């Protein structure tokens, strides 16, 4: 089992709120980040992900609990004594220094000899694809270039952990996609543990080996992108990553892995659950839109009325109204153009799915 490079043991963080009461930014978090992974912390604004990152970096100390880096308890250790470097959201490049001095800063602080610094800076700038920029000042660089300098400045120190605080936020979409790929590639190459904070779930899915989903200070689930997507453990996770349809009901029958849920409109559907459930428990059944199939006739587990159709080139999206007045979304890939107009608004349809794609969620 790969060793943990970062560990959170019962970590909580409290802040004094603007109105005087305390805000619990991080709530009793246990975390284990293995060495060499690309680890993302994903969640909406205000969920505590940045605070978590800052506690690893040493800019905040936990109110309760311990932060352990590379086996050593961090306690009150300041950022300058931690084997961790950060790429800040606004890059935080020193405006009064040129690119060379910015990138060399960490090495200078560590008192590396001058002739040792120069080749490493050049090498680093090559690696981030900014050769020859040594003498420019930050204000002369574009956003994307500044971001690379920030990356170089952090990586050159070969930290045990590299922290990235939504570094791609300020870039335009196309540049962003390019950088996502580059960052992933970079991480593969240098092998350093990346802890990456973002609110963009697509970004997390693309880049990460492991994703930790947070909301309101609580760590909800940690898993690979596939695990998170296919086996979300809570409604929030299911909803935050991709799109999900929720059908509300209670457990009617439990037989091993197979579960029958009685929906609020009396229909029974088959589903599976990753946790144990009891008869009579109120649950949600989560089904991804692309896992639903539509039939024209009476063959559907659930019947509905097509409300809206949206053509998106690669797929069709249908909003279907169910008898209990809730709507679900169905996505159908347009492999052949004929499928384009299979259904129209006003059509009565039946919805079907594999029971293993219907997940029972209790939280």
């Amino acid at each position: 089992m790969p060793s943990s490079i970062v560990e959170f043991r019962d970590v909580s963080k409290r802040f004094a709120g603007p109105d005087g009461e305390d805000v619990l930014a991080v709530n009793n978090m246990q975390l284990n980040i293995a060495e060499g992974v690309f680890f993302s912390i994903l969640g909406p604004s205000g969920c505590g992900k940045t605070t978590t990152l800052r506690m690893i970096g040493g800019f905040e100390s936990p109110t309760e609990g311990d932060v352990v880096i590379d086996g050593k308890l961090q306690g009150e250790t300041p950022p300058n004594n931690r084997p961790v470097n950060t790429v800040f959201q606004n890059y935080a490049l020193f405006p009064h220094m040129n690119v060379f001095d910015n990138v060399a800063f960490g090495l200078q602080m560590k008192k590396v000899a001058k002739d040792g610094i120069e080749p490493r800076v050049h090498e680093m700038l090559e690696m981030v694809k900014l050769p020859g920029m040594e003498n420019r000042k930050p204000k002369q660089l574009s956003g994307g270039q500044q971001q690379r300098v920030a990356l170089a400045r952090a990586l050159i120190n070969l930290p045990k952990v590299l922290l990235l605080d939504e570094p791609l936020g300020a870039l335009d979409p196309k540049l962003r996609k390019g950088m996502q790929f580059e960052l992933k590639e970079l991480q593969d190459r240098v092998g350093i543990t990346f802890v990456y904070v973002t609110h963009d779930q697509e970004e997390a899915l693309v880049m990460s080996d492991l994703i930790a989903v947070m909301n309101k200070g609580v760590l909800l689930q940690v898993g690979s992108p596939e695990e998170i997507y296919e086996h979300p453990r809570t409604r929030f996770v299911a909803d935050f990553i991709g799109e999900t349809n929720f059908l509300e009901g209670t457990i009617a029958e439990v037989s091993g892995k197979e579960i029958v849920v009685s929906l609020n409109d009396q229909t029974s559907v088959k589903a599976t659950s990753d946790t144990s459930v009891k008869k009579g428990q109120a649950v949600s059944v989560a089904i991804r839109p692309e896992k639903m199939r539509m039939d024209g006739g009476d063959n559907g587990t659930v019947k509905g009325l097509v409300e809206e159709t949206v053509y998106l080139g690669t797929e069709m999206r249908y909003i279907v109204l169910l008898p209990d007045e809730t709507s679900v979304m169905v996505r159908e890939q347009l492999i052949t153009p004929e499928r384009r107009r299979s259904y129209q608004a006003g059509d009565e349809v039946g919805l079907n799915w594999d029971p293993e794609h219907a997940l029972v969620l209790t939280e």
Partner: protein
Amino acid sequence: MASKPRTKRERFTLGVLISPTLFWLSLFFIIPLFIIFVYSFLDRGTYGGIEWTFQFDNFVRFVDPLYLRIFGRSLMIAGVTTALCFVFGYPMAYWIATRSPRTRNAFMLLVMLPFFTNFVVRTYALRFILFREGVLNQVLFALGLANPEDPPSILFSQEAVVLGLVYAWIVGMVLPCYASLVGLDRSLVEAAQDLYANRARAFLRVTLPLTKAGIVAGTILVFIPSFGAFVTPDLLGGSKSDMIGNLIVQQFGMASDWPFGAAISAVLLVTMVIGTIFYFRSLRTDQAPGLG
């Protein structure tokens, strides 16, 4: 929103708006300034008036060691004052800048308030404390640090003048340094710490250089009035701490040598201008964000 006046009416309005200022300042500022420079080349008349003969005598006189000593002393006193204002004022500006946004302004106001009181009164307050039977000595007696029979005379010395000037002008350092510090991006300091700089080194390599503009402005705001000081050395210094300001005033008083006084003033003004240009130059070459 400033645009060139387009209509005749606008030009007229512009003219009306700025002419009183132009009139007043030209007549009562520019012209007198010019006259002073002219005066410095004149000679003192036998009966205390002036003689319209142009000569460089006044400036030559100034190069006398007696006067140069005063000039040097003024530079030194102003320099020491500025340095002390920085040493004591910058940390204060830093402290206020690191308070919560809600209380910052109140703290700053508290610092600025004494600055707006009557200068003479404030200097008198210091004199009140420093004189022989003043509060300072009382405290020293009580602490056993001084002998009541032979009270130390802190007043009427160069030290007292420096103290008075620092007391008077330290706000001129605190205010621009504060403005600079408040505008500093905190993430830069964190970045420095992230890159293995401890608090002291982060301060020296990031905070201090980036607040340079404030420090420069503060230096000017303290040095200029200190160099040309008159009231402070007059009230707190003895005859041995005469500064350029005192020298000038003497020429218009007992010595009754107006041209010489004008000449000294000219020297004073030119020194200031050179100093200011010099400092503004150093500001521009660095391009550090500061007071803007």
